[in-house]
């Protein structure tokens, strides 16, 4: 499958943290042609195993997405929402959403007071979770019959190609990186590799990397590669918090193994792949944090795809950076050797 087609379809699927079944099933099917075994774990991680006779490497990108849950149904039939992961409530007014009720998906609209009814004070404060609601266009009785508190609510799915290979979509975080893993798995079929590779599309990253935690325990890898998104340059961003959107980023800092980072940089350089460096003095806020301290410890690197407008329905990335990411990941994995074990802390 072409990467664009995979991305268009996989980003449209619902997969709010804790309710990732549909996204997991689709991703598992996509990996099957390129690996030896695919499994979906009880928590909805997808584990795709590409066998090798060398060190065991766990590569992960998370398949869950930020979203919402119905927290209450008001008397007028409007739904109140609770955030799952860090949703910015400022992006919601006027947005269409999908409510995944037991009987099927319902289209909803996040209400917003029209300008004609606004008071001056309203215009000066943002909507909050307390004032936002979803309108299902039904009577309160109909709403109560179909919807229950706890039902998952997703952003509407769009996939729009902008200029210069940029793409705006929901859930580029982090299914764009799942697409990178998939494309790397495909590329590895044309490369020789010793590494025994587990591509894991992890669940429950957005509330604390729990999928990476349990996958790391279950698979007991020698090395880890976490693949997530980072912030691309955006007006108003604090200094040193963003990277150029046009190429990948690797992180340096105590959570990441310096030898493996060096190997990654060498691979990029010798293959003409642009790789930016970002510095994480402490937590990386990705699966790398949990993965690197799983069991007795897993030396880990972090690769990131820069996106604009993270945690919105218009997350924007550069397709060229994504393609280069797949190339770098495949080439890096093809280089992993048993001998690295001796050099790891030298």
């Amino acid at each position, binding site marked *: 499958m072409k990467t664009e087609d995979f991305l268009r379809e996989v980003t449209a699927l619902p997969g709010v943290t804790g309710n990732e079944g549909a996204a997991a099933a689709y991703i598992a099917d996509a990996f099957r042609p390129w690996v030896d075994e695919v499994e979906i774990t009880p928590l909805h991680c997808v584990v795709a195993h590409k066998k090798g006779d060398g060190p065991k490497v766990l590569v992960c990108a998370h398949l869950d997405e930020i979203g919402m849950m119905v927290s209450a149904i*008001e008397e*007028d*039939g*409007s739904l109140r929402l609770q955030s799952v992961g*860090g*949703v*910015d409530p*400022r*992006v919601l*007014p*006027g*947005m*269409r959403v999908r409510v995944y009720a037991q009987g099927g998906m*319902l*289209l*909803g*609209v*996040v*209400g*917003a*007071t*029209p*300008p*004609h*009814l*606004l008071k001056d004070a309203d*215009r000066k*404060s*943002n*909507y909050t979770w307390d*004032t936002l*609601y979803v*309108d*299902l*266009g*039904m*009577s309160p009785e*109909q709403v109560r019959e179909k919807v229950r508190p706890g039902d998952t609510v997703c952003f509407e799915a*769009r996939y*729009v190609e*902008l*200029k*210069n*290979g*940029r793409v*705006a979509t929901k859930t580029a975080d982090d299914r764009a990186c799942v697409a990178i893993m998939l494309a790397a798995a495909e590329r590895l079929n044309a490369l020789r590799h010793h590494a025994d590779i587990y591509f894991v599309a992890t669940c429950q990253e957005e509330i604390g990397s729990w999928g990476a935690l349990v996958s790391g325990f279950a698979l007991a890898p020698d090395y880890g590669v976490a693949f997530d998104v980072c*912030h691309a*340059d*955006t*007006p*108003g*961003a*604090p200094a040193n918090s963003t990277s150029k959107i046009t190429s990948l980023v690797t992180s340096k800092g105590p959570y990441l193994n310096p030898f493996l980072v060096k190997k990654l940089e060498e691979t990029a350089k010798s293959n003409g792949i642009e790789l930016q460096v970002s510095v994480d003095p402490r937590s990386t806020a990705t699966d790398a944090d949990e993965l690197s301290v799983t069991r007795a410890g897993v030396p880990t690197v972090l690769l990131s795809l820069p996106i*604009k*407008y*993270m*945690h*919105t329905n*218009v997350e*924007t990335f550069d397709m060229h950076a994504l393609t280069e990411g797949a190339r770098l990941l495949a080439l890096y994995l093809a280089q992993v050797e048993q001998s690295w074990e001796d050099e790891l802390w030298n």
Partner: protein
Amino acid sequence: MELKTLCELNGASGNEGAVRKAILEAARPLCDHVRIDRMGNVIAYKKGRTGNRRLMFSAHMDEVGFIILDATDDGLLQFRSVGGIDPRVIVSKYVLVGEKQVKGVIGALAIHLQSAEDRKRVLGYDSLYIDIGAKTKDEALADCPPGSYVYFDSSYQPFGDGCVVSKALDDRVGCYNLLRLLENSYDADVTCAFVTQEEVGLRGAHGAAFDAGADAVIVLEGTTAGDMGDVEKVRRVCEPGKGVTVSFMDNASIANRELYRELLALAEEKGIAAQVKRASTGGNDAGAYQRTQQGVRTCVLSVPCRYIHGPSSVVKLSDVEAQYQLARAFAEQA
């Protein structure tokens, strides 16, 4: 013409060309005479069997939208609204820019990068921009020069219990029903005016009103509903599902009292769902008709519309039908 087709056409105030063209073509076979006037309004005239009365129905073709001002050095487009759009509803929305319909998004700083003050601050037009993926100012302005109009990239979708969600329901519902009115024949002479520039000051209607020469003008509108969520009861203007609204007054005009009573009585007599628009919010073309030349009697019939002036406004189709039925019943009265 389908309501969906009308809503998905793009036509902000001053840029109504696509809507005008579609309406002109649809109206031509339905009426005796159709013309475009000095303000770009489409005026469709249908001679009556007896010509005992001269009635005019009016709806506006334009919708709220945006217009490009300039671009930043790194290729982000700066813009303002055309008509009233609360900037709080445009963050993180998909848009189409300019004649080439260039795709873009209205982005904003990610939540992770916001300070505590950032989160409280309302993003106004000075701090919002449209990202089309351009890398430089020149590249951005090449396809989207200053003055380019911008639209919500927002489809028409049926949902819920007989509702639809779309941009531009205000006032394509009125245009839709005007075209339907032209399909019938009447004793009265009937003029249907599809007017421009309502959202920026009732400008098209002033021109149409000058030439109107009608005994009464009925304005077909979409009006703000505000019946859900936390809007106080006193400001809940009207409710979708309860029929067409009849206005006694708004911020631009006062309905002719006899006309207002006549329309409410007619709705009751014919069993057409109708409700009184309770609060005097907003204003519309009735203000222009009422005060041009020697003045003319007016009344406004509106479809209640939630989240008006945004990418996702909502109407109930039974209310659109009620607006048509009441306007038609009025036209058919002897």
